[in-house]
Structures are given as structure tokens and as C-alpha cells.
């Protein structure tokens, strides 16, 4: 048998062949019989009331089955609680088709269902609706003074810690100080796959929803709450996803619409949003940040103050952790962090890759660059002088933190020593050259997850957990963990996910899947291993007689004594001679609070970027990025590297081009399509080097993993912005840095 230690290597994605051959089915590809199609009608105004929906004109079209709207939607749950999903923020969740009120532009206000998609879309275009329009406000600038401090509300949200030391006095007495405001507009997740739900009507009020979601249980619970369905009435499935980035963390209105129509029509229904409607489902909020910093004569931070204000909807207080990171990334005794929201007539923002951190990090890391210049220090040296060995927000040591090694290795790879400090001092190919850096910190979280493991007599292992596969590599790493735990080759293991008939797992976000589900998978396989050991010990001549589970190991298809490898049995023989056709074990995993209590659990990274700027034309080309990440143990070098590469793409997009532009006159996003909402294309991407700095950490979780999906994005945006400053001497504080800002 081949080697069965898989963790830390870089096997290909186990689901790759399914994807490239079209055998991986996405939500819009379950072609159940007798399918009807729903098309969502979106509000063209930002605020007002629907006076009348002329639905009968459209119902009269042959093939149109129904027009659903607030005018005819049947009794649904009334209490907010029923609509609250796992990560709903404080406030009242949006209830589609409930009331005639319009509270944001592109609000879904009706669903036209027809025998074909084309007919539904056509009928939706014909649907006449009378509105009464109210004045709206969508401009955060006008709400600067109306910011309020939100309540705790949302799971995962930590209000900023109280101030420490005497930040104002320290700032006043600082040797050098800076104060600057940073801004970025709204951004949308824009996964390639559109939000789609195919609801299969199974008769008797029972349905299966194939839904694009990052959390099948979150959707199931939502549907049960909203539609009053029983546990056995609804199954939610999502085995593959064409990107989520946080957009699928909450149940979207597509699933509401499809389920509503299916239950009412007693028929299978599919609802797919359009690309334009993908701009109506949550976004990274437009954020304004004020940073104040001061240094002591030795270049240490005397004072650090970070205040953020971002938009939210009228109905929910969407929160994210924007400023807290500033209190823990650097050592500083005098810190003041503030965080406020302002309500606008928009849809609620939503977690988007490294939510909060990606925003706050830009403010912090560009301000750190400005501070380094003000203090006459090299930006890397400045960070080293302010290196934090403890998390001062909670006054605890880090369970592990190899950010220093990240700085060193990435700087060496990048050639930071060749940089000259003076802005506009470097040139190549007739262009100004700039080098910049930025670092970041992200949570290492574990949340409760469950898994089931089954092994058949022929040694095929199946492991199940209702987690998700965003394209991150979940199938692959779980297969690796399961295979290594039971000493099997990858081919002998099948990992199944994304189905509420499986053991419950949390939404796939927060970079916690590897740690949470991975640990549950390991525990389930260990539990199964214990059963196998018992079987192996049954024969009178078993070489493992008397051995405890801790005394044995599963390696290369064998079960053997750790201390005497010759005392071994072949796993498959054990199973085949046992007479059992199948063994199974369930397990779950929770964070070990006792172990973790005294520590701050975080991953870190740093990015170095080089840009070339055409001075006359303002064009910016990022020529190189080196990204170093310390995130515990890396389960799969290949999928982890891909996560970091993708993060660099995101960071570059945020720095140079991504922005959903609101026309405040209409209260409507104007560039809501892929031609005008720019995300980086291949030609924008530089050469990227990824470095993983290994951390041994058995405090975060037994696997020692911290998650890799988000941390890699941090620092990148600031590194590019700082490189642009270094190249040009122009400090652009409102992102994205488009060429006109350099003219």
C-alpha cells in the first residue's frame, strides 16, 4: 500500500475530475421533472410603496402559472425571529414579499412563475407596477454625524475593546504624529455562479432545496422558521458552489422565492437571479475610517486611534470587526478604537471575504506607512519596532504567532533591502517603481461540528458532514484528514458534504471549516478506529491483544503498535474476517475552551508588493507580490496556496479597481454588471510568491490548523497602496486607486 500520510502534502483536488467533466452538479443543474421557473421582479426605486401590481395582465399569458407578491402571498411567519438565520445581525431581517413598502433599490417585489424560464422572464418584463415614491438617502457622506454605536447583535461581532492608556494625551506628546481619513466604496462578492435554487417537490408538502448556500443547515432552519415546515419536510443540498466569498452565508431571497412557489404550486420550481440582481444581496459596506497615530523618539507607537463608520440598511444593524485588529497587531499602550454605523436606504451589507478586517486593515496599514514616513523609518523596521508579543485587546499571549518570520522570509524573497526609502526614488523601464508592504491578522476560530464515518468490509471509507465546498478545497482536505487518520490511500476515501441529511456542520465562513469540520472528521475517524481496534483484537492470536487505542496507529493500510511496527494487522483483513458488512461512528468536535482560555488565537500574514507607475498616464501595473502567511499547520499545500493566490487577486482588486458605484439620485448601483464592475483579469495579475511559515499549535485545535481562506487578503491592498505612494509620492486615501487619482 502507498504511503498514507497525506496531511501537509499537496494532492490535487479530489473533486477536480468531476468539475472539469461537468459531473459536479450545481444548484441550477438539478433537472428534476416538471420543473417550473421563477423570475424575480426587482424594484426600480429605492424607497416608497407599491400601490398596485397589475398581476392579472400577466397571469393571463398562457404558460404563466402565478405572480407572487405581497398582494397574494399566503400567511407566513410574522415574527422576526423566524427569519433570523445563524448570522443575522441585530434588527429585523428582510422579509421578501411581505409588505408593500420598498426599503431599498432592487428589492425583490414579485416572483413570476411560468412553464419556461424565457416565459417567466418575459412576463416579468411586462408586469406593470404602480409606485408611490419617497425620498431616499443612500450617501454615507450625509450621515457622518448620524453614526451610532451598534449593539452586539450578530454572532462573531466583538464591539471594540474600551480605550487603554491615555491615547489623546499620548498623541499630543508624540514626537511625530499623523492623522488621516481613508475611504472605500461598496464592493460586491460577485461569485461566478448566480444565486440559484432548484426546489424539488416531493409530494405531501415535502421538498428538497438544491440551493447555492454556504450553509445548508442555516437555510434549512430558516425555511422551517419562515414556512412552518417540519424537520422532515425539508432537505437542503449544496454539494458544489461556484464561489461564495460570504455571499452565501445567509439565506438569500432566491431560496425564499423558490420554496414559496413550490409549496404554493405543489410543483418543482427553480429561481435564478440575474447578474444585476447579484448586486442586491449584500455587500462589503462603504466605509470611512479616521486614523490617528503618534510615535515616541525610539520609533515605538505612542498612540493609536482608529475610528470607523460604515453603512447599514434601515432594518438591520449589520456589524463587522473593523477596528479591533488595530489594538492587537502592534504593541501600543495608548489605544482608542471606535466603531459606528449609519442607516441608509440600501440593503444590508453582508460578510465578504475577511469582513471588517479587509476594511480596517487598509486604514491601519496605510496609516502605519504614513507614520513610518513621518518618523523617518523604513516601514518594515517600523513594524518590527512595534511587534506585539501579546494581544493587548484581551491581555493574553498568542497561542502561536510567527509574523516576525513572515516579515523576514517575505522581505528576503521580495528583496526589500533593495528598496530606497525616498518616494519617487526608484525607476525602471521608464516608469516609477514603488515597493510597499502591509500585514494583517485574522481570527483562528473553531465552532461546533459533527461528522459520521463509515467503513465497508472492503476497506472503503465514507465520511460525511454537512459543510460546504466553496471551491476552497473542503472535499480534498477532509479526504486527506480521514485517510491519514485511518491509514488509507486517498482513493479509498470518499468525503460527502452539503446535505442536511448529514451530521450538522456550521456555515462555511470565517476560515473555520478546516479547523472545525476537520476536527470533527478526525474525531469520527478516531471513533471508528476504536471500533476497528476492538474487532482486530477479537481473534485469540491478535498481535494487538491488550493494546489501548493510544498504543496503536493506522498507517499504510495497517493497524499496528506504535512502538513495535511488526505487531500489525492488515485493516482490510480485519474488516473482512469480522463478518461485519459495515462499521460506523459519529462524532462531533468543540473547541477546547479550557485549553484555549488563556490565549489569543490568530493567524497572521504580510504582503510585499511592487508597482510600476506611468507618471504621465497614471497607469499602475503591479509587477510582483510576495505573500507570507502564518496560519498554523497547512493541510494541503496546493489548495492553501490557491487560497492565498485568490486572496492576492482580491486584495489587488480592492486596491485598484473594485467599487460598486451608487448613483445617489436614484439610490441605485449603476455598474451592476461584469463589464463595468471591474475585478482583476489575468493581465492585471503579477507574479505571486506564496510562503507558508509553519506554526506548531496544539492549542487552537488538535489538527493545529488556523484556516487560510481570508488572512491572505490582508495586507495586500495596503501594500499596493503604499507601493503607489512610494513610486509617486502621492498618497491616495480613497480606494480604489484608479488612474485619474494619480494624474
Amino acid at each position, binding site marked *: 500500500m502507498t504511503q498514507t500520510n497525506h496531511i501537509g502534502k499537496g494532492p490535487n483536488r479530489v473533486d477536480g475530475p468531476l468539475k472539469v467533466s461537468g459531473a459536479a452538479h450545481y444548484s441550477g443543474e438539478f433537472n428534476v421533472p416538471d420543473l417550473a421557473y421563477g423570475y424575480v421582479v426587482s424594484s*426600480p*426605486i429605492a424607497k416608497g410603496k407599491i400601490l398596485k401590481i397589475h398581476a392579472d395582465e400577466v397571469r393571463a399569458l398562457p404558460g404563466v402559472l402565478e405572480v407572487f407578491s405581497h398582494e397574494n402571498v399566503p400567511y407566513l411567519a410574522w415574527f422576526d425571529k423566524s427569519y433570523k438565520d445563524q448570522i443575522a445581525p441585530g434588527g429585523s431581517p428582510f422579509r421578501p414579499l411581505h409588505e408593500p413598502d420598498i426599503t431599498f*433599490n432592487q428589492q425583490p417585489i414579485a416572483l413570476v412563475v411560468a412553464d419556461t424560464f*424565457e416565459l417567466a*422572464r*418575459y412576463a416579468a*418584463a411586462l408586469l406593470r407596477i404602480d409606485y408611490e415614491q419617497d425620498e431616499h438617502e443612500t450617501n454615507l457622506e450625509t450621515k457622518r454625524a448620524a453614526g451610532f454605536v451598534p449593539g452586539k447583535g450578530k454572532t462573531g461581532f466583538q464591539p471594540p475593546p474600551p480605550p487603554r492608556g491615555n491615547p489623546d494625551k499620548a498623541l499630543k506628546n508624540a514626537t511625530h504624529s499623523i492623522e488621516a481619513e481613508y475611504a472605500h466604496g461598496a464592493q460586491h462578492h460577485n461569485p461566478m455562479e448566480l444565486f440559484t435554487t432548484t426546489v424539488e417537490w416531493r409530494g405531501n408538502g415535502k421538498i428538497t432545496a438544491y440551493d447555492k448556500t454556504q450553509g445548508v443547515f442555516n437555510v434549512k432552519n430558516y425555511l422551517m422558521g419562515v414556512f412552518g415546515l417540519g424537520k422532515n419536510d425539508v432537505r437542503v443540498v449544496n454539494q458544489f458552489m461556484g464561489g461564495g466569498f460570504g455571499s452565501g452565508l445567509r439565506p438569500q431571497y432566491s431560496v425564499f422565492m423558490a420554496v414559496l412557489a413550490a409549496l404554493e404550486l405543489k410543483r418543482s420550481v427553480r429561481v435564478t437571479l440575474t447578474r*444585476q440582481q447579484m448586486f442586491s444581496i449584500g455587500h462589503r459596506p462603504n466605509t470611512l475610517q479616521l486614523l490617528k497615530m503618534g510615535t515616541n523618539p525610539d520609533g515605538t507607537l505612542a498612540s493609536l486611534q482608529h475610528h470607523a463608520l460604515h453603512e447599514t440598511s434601515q432594518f438591520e444593524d449589520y456589524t463587522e470587526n473593523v477596528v479591533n485588529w488595530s489594538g492587537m497587531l502592534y504593541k501600543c499602550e495608548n489605544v482608542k478604537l471606535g466603531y459606528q454605523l449609519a442607516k441608509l436606504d440600501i440593503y444590508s451589507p453582508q460578510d465578504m471575504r475577511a469582513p471588517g478586517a479587509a476594511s480596517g486593515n487598509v486604514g491601519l496599514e496605510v496609516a502605519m506607512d504614513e507614520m513610518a514616513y513621518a518618523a523617518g523609518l523604513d516601514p518594515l523596521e517600523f513594524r518590527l519596532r512595534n511587534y506585539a508579543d501579546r494581544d493587548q485587546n484581551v491581555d493574553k499571549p498568542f497561542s502561536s504567532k510567527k509574523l516576525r518570520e513572515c516579515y523576514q522570509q517575505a522581505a528576503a524573497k521580495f528583496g526589500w533591502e533593495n528598496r530606497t526609502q525616498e518616494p519617487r526614488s526608484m525607476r525602471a523601464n521608464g*516608469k516609477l517603481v514603488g515597493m510597499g508592504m502591509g500585514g494583517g491578522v485574522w481570527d483562528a476560530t473553531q465552532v461546533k461540528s459533527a461528522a459520521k464515518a463509515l467503513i465497508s468490509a472492503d476497506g472503503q471509507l465514507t465520511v460525511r458532514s454537512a459543510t460546504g465546498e466553496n471551491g476552497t478545497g473542503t472535499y480534498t482536505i477532509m479526504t486527506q484528514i480521514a485517510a491519514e487518520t485511518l491509514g488509507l490511500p486517498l482513493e479509498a476515501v470518499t468525503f460527502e458534504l452539503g446535505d442536511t441529511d448529514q451530521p450538522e456542520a456550521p456555515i462555511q465562513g470565517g476560515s473555520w471549516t478546516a479547523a472545525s469540520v476537520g476536527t470533527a472528521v478526525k474525531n469520527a475517524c478516531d471513533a471508528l478506529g476504536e471500533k476497528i481496534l476492538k474487532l482486530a483484537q477479537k481473534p485469540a492470536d491478535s498481535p494487538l491483544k491488550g493494546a489501548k487505542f493510544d498504543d496503536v496507529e493506522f498507517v499504510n493500510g495497517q493497524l499496528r503498535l506504535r512502538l513495535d511496527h511488526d505487531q500489525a494487522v492488515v485493516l482490510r483483513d480485519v474488516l473482512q474476517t469480522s463478518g461485519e458488512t459495515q462499521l460506523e461512528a459519529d462524532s462531533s468536535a468543540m473547541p477546547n475552551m479550557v485549553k484555549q482560555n488563556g490565549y489569543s488565537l490568530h493567524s497572521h500574514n504580510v504582503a510585499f508588493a511592487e508597482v*510600476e507607475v*506611468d507618471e*504621465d*498616464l*497614471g*497607469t499602475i*501595473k503591479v509587477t510582483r507580490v510576495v505573500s507570507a502567511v502564518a496560519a498554523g499547520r497547512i493541510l494541503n499545500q496546493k489548495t492553501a496556496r490557491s487560497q492565498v493566490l485568490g486572496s492576492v487577486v482580491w486584495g489587488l482588486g480592492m486596491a*485598484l*479597481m473594485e467599487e460598486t*458605484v451608487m*448613483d445617489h*439620485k*436614484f439610490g*441605485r448601483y*449603476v*455598474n*451592476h*454588471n461584469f*463589464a*463595468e464592475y*471591474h475585478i*482583476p*483579469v*489575468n*493581465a*492585471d495579475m503579477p507574479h505571486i510568491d506564496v510562503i507558508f511559515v509553519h506554526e506548531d499549535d496544539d492549542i487552537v485545535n488538535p489538527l493545529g490548523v488556523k484556516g487560510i481562506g481570508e488572512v491572505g487578503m490582508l495586507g495586500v491592498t495596503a501594500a499596493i497602496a503604499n507601493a503607489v505612494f512610494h513610486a509617486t509620492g502621492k498618497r491616495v486615501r480613497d480606494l480604489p486607486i*484608479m*488612474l*485619474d487619482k494619480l*494624474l
Partner: protein
Amino acid sequence: MYPFTYSRATDVADAVRDKAGHDGSAYIGGGTNLIDLMKMNVEQPAHLTNVAKLPLSKIEDLPDGGLRLGATATNSDTAWNEQVKQRYPLLNQAILAGASPQLRNAATNGGNLMQRTRCYYFYDIATPCNKREPGSGCSAIGGYNRIHAILGASEACIATHPSDMCVALAALAPTVRVSGPNGERTIAFEDFHRLPGEQPEFDNTLAEGELITSLDLPEKGFAKHFAYLKLRDRHSYAFALVSVAVGLEMDGDTITEARLALGGVAHKPWRDKSAEEMLKGQPATAETFGRVAAHVVANGVGQGSNDFKIELARRAIVRALKQAAEGQQEAGDVYLGGQ
């Protein structure tokens, strides 16, 4: 999208007849623009006459030394045609600077001339737009107008023509051959697209039912001294904020003939003949280029979010003239955002 009927024309006469025989009909080439517009209900043709398979896809020599580009030749086949590469590398470059390989493989030359503006509001039927719905108002004026015109705009519309190919064509000055219910005619390229005036609903001077059959390039291709410079918000697959096409004839350091056209700045590809005159007989120096560039944008009017384009265009003209004079570019080079 509204329902429509569809037929595939076999020859030019058939196409013209088919279209004339159906109310609210439209020709369709590669469909890369029209289908999008139909999906967004911006255009609602009741009938499509597919012209993509008409026998108009050849690229062939003309007796006067010019080159005929068939209207249904794809943008890709046109760009990579040997004659185009050698004799009209400016056109090669402009086409390759546009869209993506997939789009260029589908897009036809006729469709490229006829593509509609990318004005955000034109595409969104929830907002007023004079071009889409005459008399409803122009949302871009006073709105978000980063990609809008700085030259030749009107109070009714400030949209731009988005094509790259057409900017090179404006410099190369071909004749557009068309066939319609009243027979054939030719239109000088500079007369093909129009300024918005009070009727922004008309992008060009093609009469109802007329079909573009070819673009006839004159012999002169400026193959030695040319430049196509495109500035945009990402390095590929984005429309031009400003683009500049330059063709020069040089005698030593002296410019003997010049062509200069801009994209992304006006309702039509913006050829400036007075600037071309100014360049004639002048030395190819920074001073000359600066003077001419200032002249081209002298009447530029910003609308807010596009104010920067006046200065950007000025600088881009200087750069493109310099590049053309130096003869730096070659066919097939794909320029990335002016890098």
C-alpha cells in the same frame, strides 16, 4: 427578453428583404452586444435576421490598392489577417485592445461599428435615458459619468461610442459599403457615426434597413509610424476611458502626413482633422505634440466624474504621437493599459 422570430439570411438581398419584411426587426451579427441588450430589455426586436453567415466574411485586395474587410468577418479574423497585420497594424492593435478573445471571435466587423454605447443608464431601464427613450432625460448628466464624453456632447446625451476598432478606422478613413431597400451606397467613415445633438437615439447615419457589407480601406496604412494607446480601468477586458489612434508619414524627423483619432471621448470616434493639419510639416518633437494635444482637447467639457479625461486625453495624445513617431509598435503587440 421579449419573444422574437428568427431567420438566417443566405445572401445580401435575402437579408435586406427579410428584415424589411418584418416589423421591429434587427440584423444580428455575432450577437455579443445585441443579445445583452435584449436580455436587459433595452432592445426588443420582434424579429432577428441573422447576417453572420452571409458570404461577406472575406478580406480581399481592392483594385485601387486598398483592402476590403467583409462585414461579417470576425474581429479576430480581421485582426490576425496577414494583410491587416502588415499593411494596417494600427487596426490590428486597436481590435486586439478591445473586449476579450472570446468576444472578438464572435463579434463581426459590421456589429462592431454598430455596437451601442456602454453608458450605465442606457443599459438600465429603471433610469431615464434619451438614447433609449427619447425625451425621458439624460441620467448621466449630473450622475456618474466616468466613461462619458468630453467632446461633442449635447444637452440631450453625453454618451461615447465604445469601440476600439472604430478609432483605428477613423484614422484610416475607409469607406463603409452598405446595401438597403433602396440599393447600395457608400458612406465615408467619418460620416458614419454621428454626434448626439438633439437626437441621441441615432448613433449613426445608416438608414432603416441598411446592411453594412464591407469596409473598404484605402491603400495608405501608416504601417511604419502608428500607435494605438488605450487607457482603461484594468489591463484588459475593459472599455477605453481614453484611446488614441495615430498614423504618421515621416520624412526624417518631419511629419509629412498625420492621422489622429480618439476613442472614449465622444459620441463618435473622434477624428481631429485640424490637429492633423497642425502636425503636417512639423518636426516630431515634444513641443509639437504638446501643442497639438492641447488643441485637440481645448474644447473639452467635463461632466464631473469624467473631468480627468480632458487632461488624460491630452497626455495620451502626446504619448501616442511620440510612440508613432518613434515607430515603436508592431502588429500583434497587445498593449496593456498603456504599459
